[in-house]
Structure formats: structure tokens, C-alpha cells
């Protein structure tokens, strides 16, 4: 149901429960989040802003959502446009006013005020309540929108009277429990031109529309919300395919489901740098680099890889036409045309200046919903930033990236950055992307060569190397750059260095082989010497042995001789001895 109660945020058990303020959901994406539930139930709320800021659309969407999503019929009382014009205007936003009117869920009371009516004396605006009461009764309305009270002041030119009649009307609306949106023009020094905020103080919403460098950005702020917490910031909003949509950057939840599935980048060497598997499905990928570094080519590789897996890709190009991209990619061996024919690849090419930033993003979301791709390429995202303030761009893009992430679509953005650093808006997007590839050109020896490195890759092991990025007829490849004594080398310098290295290593091989051979020879020599010595020694040994033996024999012989001699000498005595 449309009527919701704000949650009580009980901080401690001792704290008394807060009075709950009944709220009515507007169904406007983002607005209910900011206001913690919607507009105050059974009270009039003021929506004010300069002309063309989307007040009528806000009011109408409040009613249409009430009728279609919360079973609360609504009455739209307008002084501004005829019913036909209004229906035509909002039909483009997908609101089926005619159908809802037929079903009795919506009643549009268009009351073109004719300023040419002649005043002949005193009068009041009793009929305003009469007609509103009649309309509310017709369909059992729970919601009312009055657009725009300023017209009453213009038509009747009696400010005091109109003011008092409006007070009567607001009281009547409250008495009848009608949740109401009143729109009014922004005043010069007051919030509204005729001080409506004095009587409508429960909830005041301010809409604004700024044009900076021809690019329009809409902003919204909840100025006041009696008895309720609300986001106090200025929020950008857009009027897109789904109507009014507030982009509450700061209230973006981080609750989207994540995938741990990895998808190939289509560039073999790049997958390798990203832990060998590519990027996470549904993550945000940014490719930054200066002009002519091959960002579109890498993006096309991603697209080609996705199509190869049978997945669909939506490619937004803001600088090149489809034909140009197809031709250029064919030159590096990427046949994108086949995927277009098979209906897997869908191009949307448009000059960034054809529409405002918010319209671009709204269209992107619309096409994304229609085409339901698994990969969305925005090439380059930086051209959208042209003319817009950094905050606008980053906040809009944050919303866009978040949208894609929350739907599990891989978002690939290329960013053109000028020489010498990143621009502010890009810097702030970079914090939201999961993978950031940076392409650089290296100028060495009269050559420009492309090189790529992974500046950031959340949740995966990734290479810290700078790799040279080669574009050839056969496609795109990454090769490790030459890191030698003279620093990082790419291109022909790399080739030269590599061949020099090869030559050197060849020389070294030869030298060492020579040395080895020399050593071998020396070993042979030494060993032959050793053998000789050993032979000599053996000869000597045997000779010596013989001499020793001879010597021993002679010794024995001598001893025997002595004994013989002695015996002979003592022969006689010997006889005596007998």
C-alpha cells in the first residue's frame, strides 16, 4: 500500500518510541528514499521551482504511481495546460493517462484560466473546492495534485483573495485526508512567488534547473519536512523514460548482488594480467588514456569476446559512427559487423551535444532495459562530461554505473584524458569502477608506442607490469615490455634491445663454451700428468721394493756368513766343548 509508516530508529531501549508520521509513497525512484517513505499522508505538500523544472511531471507521476502501484486513485487539477496537451506531454513518459481515466483511477480536471474574464465586483473561489470535491467523489480519490497555483494569482489578480481561498482549499484537503501535491512557481526572494510556503509548511520540495555550458541539469532538494527526517542534500534528478527519477547518490545502497564469475576481456594478454581470467561479470571497468591510445579497440575486444560467448552487448558511441567503428575494428581483425547482423551487438551512436547529460543517461537506461545486454560500453564517457560541472557528471555517472551494476551488467567505460593527468569528474568515477586499465603512449627513439597497465583491479590478483599493446592485422595483443638497464623499452627499441640481448647472450654462450672446452683440455692435461706421475711412481715403487727385498736378502746372507765364520773359528774349541 501507498501509506507507509516511517521506521522508528530506536537507538537505545530507554529511548521513547518516536511518533510515527504516516507517509504516502510517491513511487518516484529515489524520492521515497530521500524522504524516508514519501510525502506526508493526508497533508498538502509544496513542490516549487522555476518553469520547466518538472513540477507537473512530479505531480502527475505521484498520481499515476498512486493509481497503478498503490491502488490510490487521484485527481489532477491543472490550471496550466489543457487536458489534451498534458496527456500528450506525459504519454511520452509512458504514463497511460487515457487508460487510467477510463478505469476511473485518474481524473484530470483541466481548467484553462481565461485572464480575459471581466471582474465586476467581489467574488470568491468557492467553485474551486466544489469541483475538486466533485472529482474526488467521482473516483474515490486518495491523492490530489494541483498544478499550478500561480495561475490563480495571474488569472484573478487579487493576491489576498487567492491566498485566503487557497488556505481554505488546503484546509479542506486536510479535512478530507487527501495527500496532495501543490505546485508553485519559484519566487524572487521568497520560495514561491506568493508566499505559499507559509501555508504549506509540512513538506516543501524545491526543484531547480541549471544550464551550464548548454547542458541542463535538474536538481531537487527537500527543503522542509515537518516531523520527519529527510535527505538534506541537493540531488540531481532526471526526467527519463520512467519519468521523474531522483538520483540520491549518497543514499545509494551497496547491496547489489555480486558475481564471482569472470569474463574474458577478449585480449589474451590482458586476461593474463587480470589474474588469468578477465574481469568480474557485472563489475565496472574503466579504460583511460589519451587520444589515440586504442581505448575503443580494447572496448571492441570486450564486446567481441562477449558476442563470442553468445551474449548481447550495447555499445554507446559518442564520437564515432557505427560504420567507422566497424571499419576501424576490421583493420585489427575484429569483425563486429557479424555480431550486429546476428543481433548480439547493438550500437547507439550519437553526438554528445545532441542532448543534455541527463537525457543521455535516461536514454541509456531506456535502451539498456530494452536490449537487456550483459555488457554496456560507453565510449567515451568523458565526452558526456563536456560542458557539465564535475559534480553533475560524476553524480550522474555514479548513478548510471550503480544502475548497471545492480542489474548485473558489466559496464565498460572509456575515458579520454588530456595529457597530464585525469580530470576531476573522471577521478571521482574511478573510485566506483572495479577495474581500471590505463593506456599510455611511450615516446622513445622517435616512436610512439602504446602500453597498458592495470591501475586497479578489485578483488583479483593482477599484474603490476606495463605491457606493450600491439595493434596489428591479426588483432590486439599485449606483450611484456623490455625492462633493461636503460629503463622500459617499447616498439622497435624493445625489438632492438631484445635482439641485442639475444646477441649478447649468444656471445656469452660461446665464451662459456670456449672456457668449458679449455677447462676440459686442462683437465685432460692434468689427468695425463697425474697418470704419468702415477706410472713413474709405480715403477719407482716396484724398483724400491726390489731393492728392499735385495737388501733384506743380503742382510740374511751376511748373518749366515757370520755364523759360519764363527763356527769355523771356534771349531777346535768346539771340540773341547764336547
Amino acid at each position, binding site marked *: 500500500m501507498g501509506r507507509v509508516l516511517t521506521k522508528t530508529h530506536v537507538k537505545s531501549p530507554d529511548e521513547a518510541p518516536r511518533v510515527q508520521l504516516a507517509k504516502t509513497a510517491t513511487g518516484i525512484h529515489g524520492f521515497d528514499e530521500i524522504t524516508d517513505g514519501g510525502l506526508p499522508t493526508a497533508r498538502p505538500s509544496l513542490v516549487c521551482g522555476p518553469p520547466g523544472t518538472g513540477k507537473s511531471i512530479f505531480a502527475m507521476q505521484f498520481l499515476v504511481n498512486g493509481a497503478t502501484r498503490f491502488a490510490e486513485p487521484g485527481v489532477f487539477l491543472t490550471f496550466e495546460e489543457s487536458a489534451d496537451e498534458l496527456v500528450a506531454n506525459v504519454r511520452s513518459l509512458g504514463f497511460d493517462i487515457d487508460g487510467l481515466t477510463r478505469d476511473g483511477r485518474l481524473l484530470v480536471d483541466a481548467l484553462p484560466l481565461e485572464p480575459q*474574464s471581466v471582474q465586476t465586483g467581489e467574488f*470568491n473561489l468557492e467553485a474551486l473546492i466544489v469541483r475538486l470535491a*466533485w472529482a474526488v467523489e467521482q473516483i474515490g480519490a486518495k491523492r490530489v495534485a494541483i498544478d499550478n497555483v500561480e495561475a490563480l494569482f495571474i488569472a484573478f489578480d487579487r493576491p489576498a483573495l487567492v491566498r485566503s481561498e487557497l488556505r481554505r482549499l488546503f484546509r479542506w484537503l486536510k479535512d478530507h485526508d487527501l495527500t496532495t501535491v501543490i505546485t508553485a512557481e519559484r519566487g524572487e526572494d521568497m520560495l514561491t512567488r506568493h508566499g505559499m510556503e507559509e501555508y504549506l509548511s509540512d513538506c516543501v520540495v524545491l526543484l531547480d534547473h541549471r544550464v551550464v555550458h548548454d547542458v541542463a541539469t535538474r536538481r531537487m532538494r527537500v527543503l522542509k519536512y515537518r516531523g520527519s527526517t529527510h535527505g538534506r542534500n541537493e540531488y540531481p534528478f532526471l526526467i527519463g523514460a520512467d519519468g521523474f527519477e531522483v538520483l540520491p547518490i549518497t543514499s545509494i545502497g551497496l547491496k547489489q548482488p555480486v558475481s564471482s564469475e569472470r569474463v574474458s576481456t577478449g585480449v589474451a594478454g590482458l586476461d593474463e594480467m587480470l589474474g588469468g581470467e578477465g574481469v568480474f561479470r557485472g563489475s565496472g571497468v574503466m579504460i583511460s588514456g589519451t587520444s589515440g591510445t586504442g581505448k575503443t579497440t580494447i572496448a571492441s575486444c570486450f564486446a567481441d569476446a562477449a558476442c563470442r560467448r553468445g551474449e548481447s552487448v550495447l555499445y554507446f558511441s559518442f564520437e564515432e559512427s557505427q560504420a567507422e567503428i566497424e571499419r576501424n575494428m576490421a583493420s585489427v581483425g575484429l569483425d563486429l559487423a557479424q555480431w550486429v547482423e546476428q543481433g548480439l551487438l547493438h550500437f547507439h551512436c550519437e553526438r554528445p551535444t545532441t542532448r543534455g547529460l541527463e537525457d543521455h543517461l535516461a536514454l541509456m537506461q531506456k535502451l539498456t532495459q530494452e536490449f537487456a545486454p550483459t555488457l554496456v560500453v560507453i565510449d567515451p564517457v568523458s565526452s558526456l562530461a563536456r560542458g557539465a560541472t564535475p559534480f553533475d557528471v560524476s553524480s550522474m555517472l555514479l548513478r548510471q554505473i550503480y544502475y548497471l551494476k545492480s542489474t548485473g551488467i558489466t559496464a565498460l567505460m572509456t575515458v579520454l584524458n588530456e595529457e597530464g593527468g585525469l580530470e576531476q569528474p573522471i577521478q571521482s568515477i574511478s573510485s566506483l569502477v572495479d577495474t581500471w586499465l590505463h593506456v599510455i603512449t611511450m615516446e622513445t627513439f622517435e616512436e610512439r608506442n602504446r602500453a597498458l597497465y592495470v591501475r586497479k583491479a578489485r578483488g583479483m590478483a593482477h599484474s603490476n607490469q606495463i605491457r606493450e599493446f600491439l595493434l596489428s592485422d591479426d588483432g590486439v595483443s599485449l606483450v611484456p615490455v623490455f625492462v633493461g638497464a636503460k629503463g622500459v623499452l617499447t616498439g622497435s627499441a624493445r625489438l632492438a634491445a631484445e635482439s641485442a640481448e639475444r646477441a649478447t647472450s649468444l656471445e656469452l654462450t660461446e665464451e662459456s663454451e670456449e672456457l668449458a672446452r679449455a677447462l676440459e683440455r686442462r683437465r685432460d692435461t692434468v689427468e695425463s700428468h697425474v697418470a704419468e706421475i702415477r706410472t713413474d711412481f709405480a715403477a719407482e715403487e716396484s724398483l724400491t721394493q726390489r731393492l728392499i727385498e735385495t737388501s733384506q736378502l743380503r742382510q740374511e746372507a751376511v748373518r749366515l756368513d757370520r755364523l759360519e765364520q764363527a763356527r769355523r773359528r771356534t771349531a777346535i774349541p768346539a771340540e773341547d766343548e764336547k
Partner: protein
Amino acid sequence: MSTPAARAAEERAPTAGRLHLTLFINGASPASARSMQRLRDLCDRHCPSAYELEIVDIYQQPELVVSRGVLAVPTLIKELPLPVQVLIGDFTDEQRVLATLGLPAAETTEV
């Protein structure tokens, strides 16, 4: 709803570019009753031929209020002769009423 006087006038001059008026009032309000009387007096005094005056109570016929785009009370719509003119207020500014309705400023004597 026609006044007897208007009906009488209709009988007398059926083909003339007769004045046809619709007045939206709050039937319960004394101020509305006074302004209705003021208009009748004015028309009776200044209308050379006859006129037709239809009275709509906004609380009785709100659908007419919606279809005729009425906001102010009292509102007088001069239906005929063309062009259609819308007058709001209680007819105290007689000169303006007469000029808008295309009636002569001088009072016409009763026939």
C-alpha cells in the same frame, strides 16, 4: 431555468439576437442571492428586448461547474450573442457589466 420575464420576452421577440446568460452562484449564500438580484435588476433596467438567465447552484450541479470551467463565485457567462464572455464578481461595477454584456448604458423604460 428561465425567469418569467425572459419567457415573456421570448414570446415577444423570438428571433432577435437575444441575450442568454448563465449565472453560477452558491444558492445557500446571502451574498450570492444579493448578486443574483443585482444582476436581474440591472438586466431588467437595461435590456431593451428580452433576456434569458439560467441560474446554476454550484453545490447542486457540480458537473456543470467542472464542464464550464467555473472557479469564481459568482460567475456569469454570456452565452449569446457571441462572443462568449465570462464575468466574475457581484455586479457592483454596473458600467463594466453593461459594457461586457453589450447593453446600453441608458436605462430602458418598461414597455
